[in-house]
């Protein structure tokens, strides 16, 4: 009887573990960075300036890292998957653009509001692109 109980328990545990691993491996949305610790805290202008001055050095400091960025909201929109997108105000052609995780709510945000977000730096095109972001 004990042996039978052990086998059933082992099968259940293995099933739960396998389901968890499969759910992680086959996840359909990117991991948000909400629970990750930020490696740097910057103003949006400061981050943009760093990239405009020396992209290589800025990449060495921020690329792929979780950072917290504070700035003034210029524009609120959504990407083609319905995820909120925040463009921060800037004095130059480029800007810091943050794509939030789909469960983040921006209904209470408005242009000219100062906010902080935490996100992963994906690099620089004409803008500094932040992904997997959460409001702080």
């Amino acid at each position, binding site marked *: 009887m004990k042996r039978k109980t052990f086998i059933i328990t082992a099968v259940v545990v293995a099933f739960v573990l396998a389901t968890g691993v499969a759910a*992680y*491996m*086959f*996840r*359909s949305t*990117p*991991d948000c960075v909400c629970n990750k610790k930020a490696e740097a805290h910057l103003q949006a202008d400061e981050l943009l300036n760093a990239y405009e001055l*020396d*992209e*290589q050095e800025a*990449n060495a400091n921020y*690329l*792929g890292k979780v950072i917290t960025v504070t700035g003034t909201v210029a524009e609120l929109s959504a*990407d*083609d*998957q319905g995820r909120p997108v925040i463009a921060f105000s800037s004095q130059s*052609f480029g800007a810091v*653009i943050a*794509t939030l995780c789909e469960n983040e709510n921006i209904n209470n945000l408005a242009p000219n509001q100062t906010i902080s977000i935490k996100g*992963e*730096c*994906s*690099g*620089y*095109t*004409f*803008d500094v*692109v932040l*992904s997997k972001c959460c409001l702080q």
Partner: protein
Amino acid sequence: MNLRQLFTVIMVLLALCGSAQKYMTKTGYVYFKSHTDAIDIDGSNNKVAAMFDVSSGEIVAIVLIKAFELPLATADKHFNEVYMESDAYPKATFKGKFVNLQNVDINSNETQELDVEGVLSLHGVDKPFVQKVNISNNKGKLSGTCSMKINIDDFGITVPENVKDRVAKVVDVKVELTLEEVKK
């Protein structure tokens, strides 16, 4: 700032400072699929930046490798760390020119085929690149789409021996750009 970055900045400044008509996007879409008998691996990126100068026919497009999203977590990790080495090569760029732009009407909403030729920089390797692109104008927005095949050997992308049967040598890539006119 290295030469490549300087060239990109100059291209952007030239495009902005000139008097001719320019179009751009920051939300272009690129999709790739690696098909093998063992597994299909795909990913997409909706943060492609591109700028097109109508008078010169020049176009520049920038794709951030870390902005790709792959549904498979392990594939996402391998894509960035092993194949694309996105810390060392954070972006792919295309800089080129439409060669037969004078033969089409870019204000037409009919789909027209154009040839673009230039240099594709991927994984630190620059390769001459020629591609057919379908363009159309929808209420002032220029749409450009193309499909291509990328041989990963051409760009020095290596696959570890133990997973060689799971990553295709030739990857299908689809690009969709909707560019809006840059207001002066």
